[in-house]
């Protein structure tokens, strides 16, 4: 594994705001850098995370022509998309911050919520994955609408 610091980054030196990240103390020539995101960064809740496209306010850097995030209605599908989005976002974060216990705990909590949200959604609208079709009497996997077939006024 890669070398771990003796103590959490945020305890080591005067902290920068979330948006600054941490740079290496010795930055050699010929190697480009992206500041390493600090642990303990501020986080949105799951619906704001989905709407903004990131869990982290410090990484929310929209284009000037479309700065405002959309308002995604928290239908059973929207709720499931938001919960799963947090898992995707935290999963990527944990890939490079595997020793962040706080983020790991948050991942655990959202994984439990996502499981509930998925069960709720599948009960109302049918299976999200093929094995979930086993819970219905007939082969419900084929039921409309498919994800790209949004019907106007429909829930999907």
């Amino acid at each position, binding site marked *: 594994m*890669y070398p771990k*610091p003796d103590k959490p980054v945020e305890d080591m030196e005067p902290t920068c705001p979330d948006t600054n990240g941490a740079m290496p103390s010795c930055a050699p020539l010929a190697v480009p850098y*992206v500041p390493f*995101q600090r642990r303990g960064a501020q986080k949105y809740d799951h619906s704001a995370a989905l709407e903004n496209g990131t869990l982290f306010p410090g990484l929310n850097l*929209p284009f000037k022509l*479309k700065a405002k*995030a959309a308002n*995604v209605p928290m239908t059973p599908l929207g709720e499931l998309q938001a919960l799963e989005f947090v898992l995707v976002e935290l999963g990527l974060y944990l890939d490079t911050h595997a020793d962040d216990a706080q983020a790991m705990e948050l991942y655990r909590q959202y994984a439990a919520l996502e499981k509930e949200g998925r069960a709720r959604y599948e009960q109302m609208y049918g299976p*999200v994955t093929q094995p979930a079709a086993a819970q219905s009497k007939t082969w419900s996997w084929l039921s409309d609408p498919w994800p790209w077939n949004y019907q106007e006024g429909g829930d999907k």
Partner: protein
Amino acid sequence: MFIYEKKLQYPVHIRNTNPKLANIIISQYGGPDGELGASLRYLSQRYAMPYPELKGLLTDIGTEELGHLEMIGAIVHQLTRKLTDEQIRTAGFDTYFVDRTTGVYPTAASGFPYSAASMAVKGDVIADLTEDLAAEQKARVTYDNILRLSDDPDVNDVIRFLREREVVHFQRFGDGKRTRGSEKELLTKPGGRLTRSPGCFVGVRPSATKTPYRAARSGSAPPCPHCSRPA
């Protein structure tokens, strides 16, 4: 393996037909900086990637990009599914329509079909991660340009989301480069032995470099050539 989830990552609800806009957005399906190329790039780079956190990152981002490919396909489909005869003839979609009708085909907006020549797999940690950083920025600019060209709020909501994902992925590849793709790699021979002092590894925080500092003081390791202070 991959298992399909019968839902999009982010909702795509496009109300208005707009074939001209579809003709532009198709570039993120099969264009030079599109989502197909992104997913193939990352999923293919995994095999030569030696470190677990980078294997994980490429797998997870590559998989997410497949979800983005599906979202772009959904946008193009919803922009063209109710075409009128008049729109087919006059809305700037005719050159696409003649070959693909309203099928969604991986092509650049220019009409050039998807080409793997637009992406790279070099089999080297630094080269591949630097390629990935550039790829995320190029995709981000393409989304900037789509926002410059599109005035459909339903489309722009989705494009804003996809653009923000490029920003986050750039940060993650940067984080990943700090854990591995660093000076340590540049100093490593094919056999895996460091050729010079590891005193100023990139990504190794000061507290983790105590041992090399001590080695340098006792004269058993050469000074780090890149540091302004002795290693």
